[in-house]
């Protein structure tokens, strides 16, 4: 079921000078419920502008946009967006834009209370969201402005998760996260998608970090959407990325090259470090001995391998607020 439909929407910033091109140009898109979308594009290609249309912060200057049951048509300003905003949670590019209370707790409870939860429910949601992003309860009492950049980002993400939105929209949420936190966040989003049918729309400029997780990829270039499709399609056509001025990740280069050289369709190729290592070992003669050895090792050590393979979930992270 489509939850978002953009029909040729364009957007011009009110204060834009005449020399400034449109921020969005004729964008058409359909987003389905329960999928993980990754939006990639060069600096200034319109990603943030598009995202802010999804909860009505910006409304199209041309064309028509529907998000759930709300229709935004050019020229007709829609007001009373609270019900929509309870369904669509947006994490801004700069966490400072998201935080305004004197404690993390108040910031986290703000959304749930706005959308009808009582104090107790809101507090429970707040704690759950905080733990989900890998921060412990001691952060509740801290001021959101006296945190490190990465901690502030995690709190900003948690404020959105606390309201339990159906559509979670994130603008470069991984930018200031340490690499392991980045992986953990993407795993968390993927879980919300797969286990709870939430829809994820995430902007990133690191295509590699979402390569395994995202279902659909949307490329943007100078305000226009130049491509939407699956990972396999994207791997088959690296020129699309080059055209959008996006560096082709090494994992994609490897997939592309192996697919060409061995004549394997990309859909059959693995993803992720673990996946690739296992696949390469399986498909190489130098490793057949190693494979034997690996296989005859006790299953306990195999277990150890897989444990190591899946980083501790964000919930078990050890970042202390005190």
């Amino acid at each position: 079921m489509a939850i978002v439909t953009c029909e040729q929407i364009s957007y011009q910033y009110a204060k834009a000078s005449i020399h400034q091109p449109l921020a969005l140009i004729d964008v058409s898109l359909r987003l389905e419920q329960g999928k993980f979308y990754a939006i990639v594009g060069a600096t200034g290609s319109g990603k943030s502008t598009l995202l802010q249309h999804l909860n009505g912060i910006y409304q199209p200057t041309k064309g028509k946009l529907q998000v759930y049951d709300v229709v935004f048509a050019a020229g007709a300003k829609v007001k009373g967006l609270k019900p929509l905003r309870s369904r669509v949670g947006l994490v801004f590019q700069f966490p400072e834009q998201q935080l305004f209370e004197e404690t993390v707790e108040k910031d986290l409870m703000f959304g749930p209370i706005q959308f009808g939860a009582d104090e107790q429910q809101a507090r429970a949601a707040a704690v759950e969201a905080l733990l989900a992003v890998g921060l412990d309860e001691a952060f509740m009492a801290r001021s959101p402005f006296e945190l490190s950049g990465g901690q502030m980002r995690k709190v900003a993400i948690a404020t959105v998760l606390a309201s339990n939105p159906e559509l979670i929209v994130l603008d470069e949420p991984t930018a200031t996260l340490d690499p392991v936190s980045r992986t953990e966040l993407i795993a968390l989003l993927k879980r919300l998608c797969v286990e709870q049918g939430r829809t994820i729309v995430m902007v990133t400029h690191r295509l590699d970090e979402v390569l395994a997780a995202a279902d659909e990829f949307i490329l943007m270039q100078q305000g226009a959407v130049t491509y939407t499709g699956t990972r396999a399609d994207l791997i088959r056509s690296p020129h699309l990325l080059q055209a959008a001025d996006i560096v082709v990740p090494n994992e994609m280069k490897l997939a592309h090259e192996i697919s060409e050289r061995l004549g394997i369709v990309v859909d059959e190729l693995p993803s992720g470090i673990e996946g690739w290592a296992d696949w390469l070992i399986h498909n190489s003669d130098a490793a057949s001995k190693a494979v034997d050895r690996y296989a005859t090792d006790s299953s306990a050590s195999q277990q150890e391998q897989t444990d190591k393979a899946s980083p501790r979930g964000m919930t078990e992270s050890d970042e202390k607020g005190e």
Partner: protein
Amino acid sequence: MIRLENIHFQYPKREALFSDLKLHVPRGQWVSIVGPNGSGKSTLVKLVNGLLSPDSGTIHIDGTLLDGESVSDIRRRTGYLFQNPDNQFIATTVRDDIAFGMENRCVPRADMKQRIDAIAEQLGISEWLNRHPASLSGGQKQRVAIAGLLVLNPEIMIWDEATSMLDERSKQDMLLRLRHLHKNQGLTILSVTHDAEEILASDRAVVIRNGVIAADMSPIQLFEDRNLAWECRLQPPFSLALSLELREKGMDIGLHHHEEELMRALWPSLHVNK
């Protein structure tokens, strides 16, 4: 060049962050400051730039003790970029903002315009010079902030995740520029970063964990030590990560940092096992 001795630091009403921290950075070295979120990286570089003062201990920059008297002079010689570029801008146009930094350092007015135009051209920001910094996208802001710093030719550059919002292409561009400046002008660089490529391009990785220097070594050593890298919440770039994983699983094809090398090493033994 940069010398921190016995640094103690604590934010008000919090536990001590640094107790007896020590760091020496010789002139011309490029140091990556890495580590988990909240470990103290930004705090460390703010101390070096005098934005925060230690509770005790000393900081010397090029032999001068950093104190209330020397701080403005030292700041004129160092270029500092904030983690959030919004903290960087003062003026209402990009051009004025860059000019402001130059005025501060007494660049003659006559040179200013030409220098701004030249750096803008180099960094591809010319078309934004008349815009309000706030109207730029996140990555554009970072590019503008970097331009405003490079135009000043600082002797020491301190970057706090200054490229975190750049797209990969612009980031590789900046990295190239940084390499060039480091090599040709002997620029001293202190850069807080989570970016594997940038870390690998630098001379030295200093890992901060819970306010302590947990490792201080060459970037390659750090990434090749899987456990240490993991504990420091770092991830090696794809090709290296894959060669490490293969080695651990019994298929040692050497450690490769580039996809082409990895492919060359893999190719001879590869065939399809159905």
